[in-house]
């Protein structure tokens, strides 16, 4: 494991939906070692705790990372005030990312709402081998669909109210895919009930499933034991930590 703290230049900033921003950050030394599923821990001026945000893009050639985040409270609002050219204070890359195997010939990536961004680096790796199912509240919350399509992956869009794509939850298309054309792995990030549903479906079908979890964090690197997550390994209950052992976990290990 290796991570760095530094102040990096924001190379570009874009508002991609209401209250949702995309930053591209120039940080070659971080981009160099970052993997899909990891996150960055961002300092918001005036706040004691950093904010964890998933990595949504890694460009090792340009030396940039991309993050996409929603304003949820005061800290993300403060971060959203940063502009192109400003410095952003990050501790990164952090955590244990997704397991990417060359043997996987067909994978399903599932993102719910602001859980969608960490799926993009996976889509970039798997390309046509991936089917991306994204779910959002409604059409105005939809993000990243063009980005997913550009990777060559198939992109299935759902909204809770049917205002865009399929009317309903991401678990519906997933059920279909699991029966029709069993994938090698499912990767998911989003709200807990969604992840729980996905984990149950994968377990039933005997498909390997990795999920990315959220928890309130302090240190972000495994020192403070703040971000506990009940898991089991070898039949023993074990309090893992989302920042270090996760955020990505084998769905089978998580005690819900």
């Amino acid at each position, binding site marked *: 494991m290796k991570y760095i703290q530094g102040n990096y230049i924001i190379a570009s900033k874009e508002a991609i939906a209401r209250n949702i921003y995309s930053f591209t950050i120039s940080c070659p030394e971080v981009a160099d070692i970052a993997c899909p599923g990891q996150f960055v821990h961002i300092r918001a001026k005036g706040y*004691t705790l*950093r904010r964890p945000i998933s990595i949504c893009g890694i460009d090792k050639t340009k030396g940039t990372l991309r993050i996409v985040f929603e304003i949820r409270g005061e800290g993300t609002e403060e971060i959203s005030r940063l502009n192109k050219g400003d410095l952003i204070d990050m501790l990164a890359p952090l955590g244990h990312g997704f397991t990417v195997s060359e043997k996987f010939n067909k994978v399903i990536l599932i993102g719910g709402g602001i859980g969608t961004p960490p799926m993009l680096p996976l889509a970039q790796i798997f390309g046509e081998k991936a089917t991306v199912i994204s779910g959002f509240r409604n059409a105005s919350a939809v993000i990243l669909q063009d980005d997913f399509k550009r990777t060559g992956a198939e992109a299935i869009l759902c909204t809770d109210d049917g205002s865009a794509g399929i009317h309903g939850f991401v678990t519906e298309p997933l059920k279909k895919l699991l029966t029709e054309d069993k994938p090698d792995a499912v990767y998911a990030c989003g709200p807990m009930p969604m992840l729980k549903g996905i984990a149950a479906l994968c377990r039933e079908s005997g498909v390997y499933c990795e999920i990315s979890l959220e928890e309130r964090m302090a240190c972000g690197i495994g020192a403070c034991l703040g971000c506990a997550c009940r898991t089991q390994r070898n039949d023993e209950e074990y309090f893992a930590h989302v920042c270090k052992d996760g955020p990505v976990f084998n769905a089978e290990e998580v005690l819900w």
Partner: protein
Amino acid sequence: MADLSVNVCGIDFKNPIIPASGVFGYGREYEELFPLNKLGGIATKGTTLHLRTGNLAPRIAETPAGMLNSVGLQNPGIDHFISTELPYLLTKDLVVLANIAGSTPDECAEVAAKLDDTDVHMIELNISCPNVKQGGAAFGTSCDMAGEVTRKVRQATKKPLVVKLSPNVTSIVDIAKSVEAAGADAVSLINTLLGMRIDINTRRPILRNNVGGMSGPAVFPIAVRMVWQVANAVDIPVIGMGGVSSGRDAIELMMAGASAVQVGAAIFTDPYAPVKIVEEMNEFLDSKGITSVKDIIGTVAPW
């Protein structure tokens, strides 16, 4: 370059800055960022007789200029500490304060006895953890209990014994006097203040434990006051902490009477905080022509 070394109950620290117990684990994670020998010491994660899983999550909440935690003493147990963490830390050229806790005075004594056979430099007995059901704050909020647990641990070890006090009391001076009388070699303060936050959308406390311990810059004035009161009331050294986030804060706490300073929550905001604090202290001392940091301890001149 001022002389930053201090001596606390016979132990030499190359500088007065020590990451506080619980924020720095056993040092490994932050070692990715800087060598541990830049620090005066390390107060290790509170360790108990047996492994503890701690409280359910969420364990962390943010507060104005501070935070709450309710980790609840998750730790791998003292045997793991002694076999795996301590030997490693002892190679790192800094003072190791083993922070310990227990549900009963006897359990605390047993942990201390195990450490007595090691090369650990100091024992920091936590009688003030607000996040566990038994022991913890219950020891630290009664003079009798504080005295009793200190006495038992004192009998179990010859190591320099630092007792860590709770701020959630009517008179921290009385508690400090009672642990001094029971044989403590030093006191450290403050542990966290009991606080609570509620998510007004869900009407649930943010912490799964409902309440948690508050720390960070918000508590600094309380730490300064308590360190000042205690330093003036006992004859043993005081290790100060609570909200320190800059070299100026550390200087202020030492002027109030602290012989060394621990840094907690500030490390979450800036992982380099303890290292920067050492540098800033040196700059301040140099700018004032003070040759040794020892010369500022307890020098506040009350009105």
